[in-house]
């Protein structure tokens, strides 16, 4: 699905990612954990194509294509989805209209005709149920006046509609109460299949109780310093990041 090799990236001349290597195959869920400032959100931004970041070294191959050569919209059209840590409000643009535009842009990219209105409405209804999203929210402006939990749920709703190959969830669990967390996790679990993959970025083990990852990676100071299975997350939860920090500051020093 995606192959990240020796990825270095910086913002305003400051290097944040210092050689990331990650291989994600179809059907897998990878969790990326790490303390604040370790580069987790930078990684998701760079993969999604945010222009503020400069890739200085390395390569990313997505479904056999050079991801870094693609515009952000083409990455999305090719099937890369980012669930934002802070979803953006677009006043006056209804969720429905936004999603219809998005889905038809993606379809056009694949050489398909725009979706019939009634098919689209059926799809909306179906996915609304999946993420337990209040029907009223789909007619409201994108994220405008949504609570933190509603915004995150809306991200998962969009993901469900657009059916990406690879979804990156950037701290989707932050600011969620237990119920919302369960809804988000259920959404992801229902959507996972052998054909798609997820990268779940999180601070806490909590989310991983609900979305069980195949692999867990610890990102620290711009590098993946440790990889393992879901037990690694538990271990981390018990010991905290301090040990990691300690260990790697020493080895680097």
């Amino acid at each position, binding site marked *: 699905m995606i192959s990240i090799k020796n990825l270095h990236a910086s913002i305003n001349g400051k290097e944040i990612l210092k050689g990331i290597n990650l291989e994600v195959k179809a059907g897998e869920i990878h969790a990326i954990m790490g303390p604040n400032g370790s580069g987790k959100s930078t990684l998701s931004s760079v993969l999604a*194509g945010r*222009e503020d970041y400069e890739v200085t070294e390395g390569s990313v191959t997505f479904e056999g294509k050079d991801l870094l050569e693609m515009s*952000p*919209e083409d990455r999305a*059209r090719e099937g890369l989805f980012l669930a934002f840590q802070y979803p*953006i409000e*677009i006043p006056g*643009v209804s969720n429905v209209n936004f999603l219809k535009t*998005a889905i038809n842009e993606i379809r056009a990219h694949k050489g398909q005709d725009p979706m019939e209105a009634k098919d689209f409405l059926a799809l909306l209804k179906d996915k609304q149920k999946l993420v337990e999203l209040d029907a009223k929210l789909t007619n409201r402006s994108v994220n405008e006046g949504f609570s933190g939990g509603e915004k995150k749920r809306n991200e998962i709703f969009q993901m469900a509609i*657009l059916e990406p190959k690879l979804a990156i969830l950037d701290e989707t669990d932050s600011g969620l109460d237990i119920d919302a967390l369960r809804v988000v996790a259920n959404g992801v679990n229902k959507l996972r299949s052998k054909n798609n993959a997820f990268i779940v970025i999180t601070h806490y083990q909590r989310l991983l109780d609900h979305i069980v990852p195949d692999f867990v990676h610890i990102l620290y100071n711009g590098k993946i310093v440790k990889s393992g299975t879901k037990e690694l997350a538990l271990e981390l939860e018990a010991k905290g990041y301090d040990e990691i920090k300690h260990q790697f500051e020493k080895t680097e020093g």
Partner: protein
Amino acid sequence: MANEILDDHIQNEYKWGFTTDIESETFAKGLNETVIRALSKKKNEPEWLLDIRLKAFKQWQNMPEPNNWAHVPYPKIDFQDISYYSAPKKKPELKSLDEVDPELLKTFEKLGISLEEQKRLSGVQSNIAVDAVFDSVSVKTTFRETLAEKGVIFCSFSEAVQEYPELIKKYMGMVVPFADNYYAALNTAVFSDGSFCYIPKGVRCPMELSTYFRINSSGTGQFERTLIVADEGSYVSYLEGCTAPQRDENQLHAAVVEIVAHKGAEVKYSTVQNWYPGDKDGKGGIYNFVTKRGICLEDNSKISWTQVETGSAITWKYPSVILKGDNSVGEFYSVAVTNNKQEADTGTKMIHIGKNTRSTIISKGISAGVSNNSYRGLVQIRKGAKNARNFSQCDSLLMGDQCGAHTFPYIEIKDKTAIVEHEATTSKIGEDQLFYCKQRGIDTEKAVALIVNGYCKEVLNKLPMEFAVEAQKLLAISLEGSVG
């Protein structure tokens, strides 16, 4: 980054900038009493109208030119360097469409305005009667017979002067007095044509009425008057559109629009203003200095202004409502877009005099390039205007970091029972919003259109269907490539 993308994008072409090659009769440049007399004679006007013109001219000569008072610096206009009358030669007295110069027909066809009644505007099944004004004269008014069956009068101002002098005498200048302001006085002195509309008692006008203004000749100004009178319990929806050729010179458009609403009458006036805005360096373009005002003369009447302003080098315009009758309602919905070096200073005045009068102001300014966009408005609650209500919302949207948005809301309240609310926001089409759209597969151009249309939705919703579609397209074109 934003600026790089901004700079990358090229200036969008003005698509209505062509010139019609047509033989015109144009007055020599210059303005004096002789010119006004000649103009009046040309139009075979009665003595009383000439008197009004001359009085207005005298007043105008003694009035100081408003200069740089708003957020719109511009070079001094040489009023002697303008021709005050230009008309296609093959006129007058058209019996049928066959007699209209084919070049003129082609011009309006090109603009999407059909002067043939069986044809419909831009393919949409619509019912719109059009009065087409080319330079200084009205060339054709459609659907006159159909309207006459209902007693609706819709014709050029010149014809109205000949055929309905009593109505003109009674209403002209009632809302905008002849010396109301510098440009209104100038207009009164030299106006050449325009539209007149009268809806009789209890009649709901069966179709949209529309005036389409086209400036063609160079070195001329366009000074037209529109007068709309809605008698008791009547209703009319009126549309106004305008374009001009692309020229290096600045041309002056100084119009006056007056609306009178009698008891229980409702007038909805919609404008899509698309005068040539000048090139990206600010060369050329129309100076659009317009006085638009309506009066809710009697109880339970309503006047609603909706405008989408995308054109002109400079726009000064404050469509206003005097709420004289009790329970009368005034509305102002506006989208004003400025790009490149355009300047717009627009807004409204709501003058509450009657009891239980209500007004709503929704203004959406969009600035791009190095343009400046100002909202300037007055809400005045006079003494005795019991329980008057106003709600104002003024939003500004900025694209890039070199444009300006300004808001000047004036509020004067002389009655304690008034409730006046004002909300204002300024926002930027953020990189964040654009990136969010792109991450969902929507490219920059579509994202901008989506965001801008969303931002203007409350106003666009107020436009009649045919106009709303046109306005949406116009917005997209005006802002094409203006953001990164």
